[in-house]
């Protein structure tokens, strides 16, 4: 592409920002006995290197599952094993069984940060660059600006390089992105293979699985169920089965193995939510203590039903009219449904919503930017725990400046551009004077930004009143909820999307 040098500059800038953020503290630094996610990752390298595969997911004297037991699918374990081999080569003390617990040193920190950067460089960043290059009907300059904004998204940078949730979010999200690319560009088999790998890396990628399924099913229907469509369906099914088998092969030898892994991956024994997370359950529980009112199994059923109801319209539409654009919007919709209504949602799961939103950044810049800012803000309590105030604020401002100058977001707030035309048209049937929707939205944006800034200042400078120790986190969650719900209303309604039907 022309102006390749600008794209290279953008990638280098993204890498520089990532590495400078990684110079800061990580989760659990210097905090025995449990430390944090950083220690979890180091521990997994220790376990996978020193113990045979059969013992990885089981509780034993060598592998105490209470101390950061493995609770991600096999591909994460294999990746940890690969890193462990490198660690062994550099300094065996880092992963020595038992004696390396709580190991912290400058050299080890550099090693761990370097593994994240390399994984990012090999998987996530090429996917982002390729996605931006394949965007249609946009100038080269806008493609590069798009890449800049996506690479500067603070949420992913702060979690992977600051907080160090080295579940390598960039790997799972990157693989999912390769999946989206493959499927959008008609490389269906490769795309589904990439997505299966993503699911096998991190089970939370199942949030994205329904749109993939519906889109590919829709494609099969379009090609005709009795001809090419059926062939495609069989091939896809074969790819999925083969990739799962390959990843789980060592665990299929005994039934108990597979079941134990599943038990570790889906801990339904835990409650409806943990900690303060910006979804419906947490927000409602301030007024109505759902956890105490409803019994456990009812909670699961209610959560399941609500999730399904909220994502059904979008998925149905996608199956009937598959198109790459619709696919991306459905990804946003479904991920958001899961985040808001699902079971045991963690704060970091907002990243699963943020990735699809990054993909639609060029189409609805204003709302996407707003959402991405709020999503970063939603993780603030987590980041403040790890002393990451400065990087958080700096990266957020950098992201905002990048989006504001690239897309001139404040100029693109007409009804047409916000995709809320049919909504406001239907409201105008009852209220003829309802023409000021764009202005409302703009004001809401400013109010939300001011509120975010104020909440940040308050959280940092003041101590919360004793009766309400989690006041600030809860207020954060409410704010985020309102914004995400607004966003969902703008996109969830199938009548509003007018993308061209899929054509071959």
């Amino acid at each position, binding site marked *: 592409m022309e102006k390749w040098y600008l794209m290279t500059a953008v990638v280098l800038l993204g890498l520089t920002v990532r590495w400078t953020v990684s110079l800061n503290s990580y989760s659990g630094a210097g905090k025995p006995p449990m430390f944090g996610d950083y220690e979890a990752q180091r521990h997994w390298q220790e376990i996978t290197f020193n113990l045979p595969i059969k013992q990885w997911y089981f509780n034993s004297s060598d592998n105490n599952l209470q101390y950061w037991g493995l609770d991600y699918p096999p591909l994460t374990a294999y990746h940890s094993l690969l890193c462990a081999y490198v660690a062994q080569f550099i300094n065996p003390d880092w992963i020595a069984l038992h004696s390396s617990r709580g190991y912290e040193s400058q050299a080890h920190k550099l090693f761990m940060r370097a593994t994240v950067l390399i994984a990012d460089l090999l998987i996530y960043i090429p996917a982002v660059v390729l996605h931006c290059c394949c965007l249609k009907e946009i100038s080269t300059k806008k493609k590069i600006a798009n890449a800049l904004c996506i690479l500067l998204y603070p949420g992913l940078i702060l979690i992977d390089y600051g907080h160090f949730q080295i579940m390598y979010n960039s790997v799972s999200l990157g693989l999912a992105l390769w999946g989206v690319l493959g499927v959008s560009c008609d490389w269906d088999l490769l795309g589904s293979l990439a997505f299966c790998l993503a699911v096998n890396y991190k089970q939370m990628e199942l949030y994205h699985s329904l749109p993939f399924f519906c889109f590919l099913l829709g494609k099969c229907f379009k090609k005709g169920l009795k001809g090419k469509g059926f062939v495609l369906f069989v091939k896809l099914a074969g790819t999925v089965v083969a990739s799962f088998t390959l990843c789980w092969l060592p665990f299929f030898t005994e039934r108990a193995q597979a079941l134990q892994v599943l038990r570790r991956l889906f801990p339904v024994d835990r409650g409806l939510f943990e900690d303060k997370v910006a979804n419906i359950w947490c927000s409602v529980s301030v007024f109505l203590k759902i956890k105490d009112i409803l019994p456990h199994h009812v909670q699961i059923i209610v959560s399941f039903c609500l999730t399904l109801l909220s994502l059904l319209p979008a998925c149905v539409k996608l199956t009937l009219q598959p198109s790459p654009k619709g696919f991306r919007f459905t990804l946003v919709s479904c991920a958001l449904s899961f985040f808001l209504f699902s079971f045991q949602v963690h704060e970091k799961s907002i990243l699963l919503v943020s990735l699809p939103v990054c993909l639609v950044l060029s189409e609805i810049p204003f709302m996407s930017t707003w959402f991405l800012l709020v999503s970063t803000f939603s993780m603030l309590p987590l980041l403040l725990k790890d002393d990451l105030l400065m990087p958080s604020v700096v990266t957020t401002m950098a992201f905002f400046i990048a989006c*504001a100058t690239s897309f001139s977001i404040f100029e693109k707030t007409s009804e047409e551009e916000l995709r809320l035309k049919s909504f406001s048209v239907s409201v105008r049937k009852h209220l003829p004077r309802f023409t000021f929707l764009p202005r409302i939205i703009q004001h809401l944006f400013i109010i939300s930004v001011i509120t975010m800034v104020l909440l940040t200042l308050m959280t940092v*400078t003041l101590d919360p009143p004793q009766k309400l120790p989690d006041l600030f986190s809860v207020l954060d969650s409410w704010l985020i909820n309102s914004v995400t719900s607004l966003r969902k209303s703008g996109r969830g309604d199938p009548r509003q999307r007018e993308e061209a039907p899929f054509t071959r």
Partner: protein
Amino acid sequence: MRIKWVECAALSVMAALSVMTGGGSWFLALALGVTLLKCLLIPTYHSTDFEVHRNWLAITHSLPISQWYYEATSEWTLDYPPFFAWFEYALSHVAKYFDQEMLNVHNLNYSSSRTLLFQRFSVIFTDALFVYAVHECCKCVDGKKACKELTEKPKFILSVLLLWNFGLLIVDHIHFQYNGFLFGLMLLSIARLFQKRHMEGAFLFAVLLHFKHIYLYVAPAYGIYLLRSYCFTANKPDGSIRWNSFSFVRLISLGLTVFLVSALSLGPFLALNQLPQVFSRLFPFKRGLCHAYWAPNFWAVYNALDKVLSVIGLNDKWFGSAVPTHSPSLGDSLGHPHLHPDCHIGPRGFLRCLILCALSSFMFGWHVHEKAILLAILPMSLLSVGKAGDASIFLILSTTGHYSLFPLLFTAPELPIKILLMLLFTIYSISSLKTLFRKEKPLFNWMETFYLLGLGPLEVFCEFVFPFTSWKLKYPFIPLLLTSVYCAVGITYAWFKLYVSVFTDPPVGKTKKQ
């Protein structure tokens, strides 16, 4: 809690500015972007210069003026001119709200987190002057090549080359120095001369000299240009001097400006009879010809050759450290280029001579710091967006000059940062200038391309291969020597090409006629 208020206040100011960029000003976006990057560099490694400046804060805050140039509790004594001392004094009044302890002269190597934050923020904020100066310089660049595309406009390229300059970023915001606002003063004075506001330009340069005397290297260029273009008020049609248009009034007003600034600066010390002491601090000729780390100049090549010959056995002993004491004047006399009258026609000619002065002084000067290469690189950026020939010289100079700064950052966590930023700046500068001048002949010949590409393997060898070889214990200085000598070749070549371009390019007056 106090530290968080300050952080929040600083960040709120920037947040407000970032909202303003929503209006679409690319210059503000570039400036804010690099400022945010500087904030991210706060936790990086800093050199002893950090302690130097902390010590000066302490000296100027806690001691009376009469003690400033005599205080020697710490080895890092005050060796900058008085205006810089006053600058530190002003800073110290803000510093006391961060951490009172840093202002104690006896707290050697004190570096609490608040001290670090204050010092880093002070560099970032004083860079505002540099940003303003860059803005003024962009006005002086003509946009005759009407490009609709923003990224191909000379103004845009110049802004990026100056605001995101690699050398300035790592020397000021990692290694730790206050070059930002000083170069801002210099660029602003150059811009004023371009805008024909000669008195302001002269005033700004005089002030700059009393901040950091290293700028004396380029003083001859200013002197001769102001004499030629300001004191002689008219030219003959062919561009040469009209001798009878000399204006005494202007000469005297210039002299008065310089005198008043110097009086303001040195006056108090003259009254205290401390001038000899001040000068001995400012010009420490007892130090050797080469700095602890060899700047990639002529003396580095001389020393290297000498060492090689002595190792081989062709020299009786190594003379590198025993250069005779009259060498300062040798350095000076070689440093000043022959002052060709033609090279002072127009501000562009002045700029060319300024760069030559800076570069020659770098090549042959006494006790040159490797950071002094920035004195040549930054003004050269202004010329690089004007002509293809200048762009080529600039690229060779900046790439080798920036690479020669690598040994300043020798810690492992900073290794990716310096490599990534170097690649960013180099790739951008080469590609954007090539795009700007794509209609003219290629910027580099095969020899130059080969040389520049050779920097890659050199870096790989010095940083990744050499530490694991057996030579590391026996000859630990080899990476420094190789870097220094390799860069000296490039810088000498650029210096030579620039010299040639000054004498071979047609003067401005004659080209206009054609």
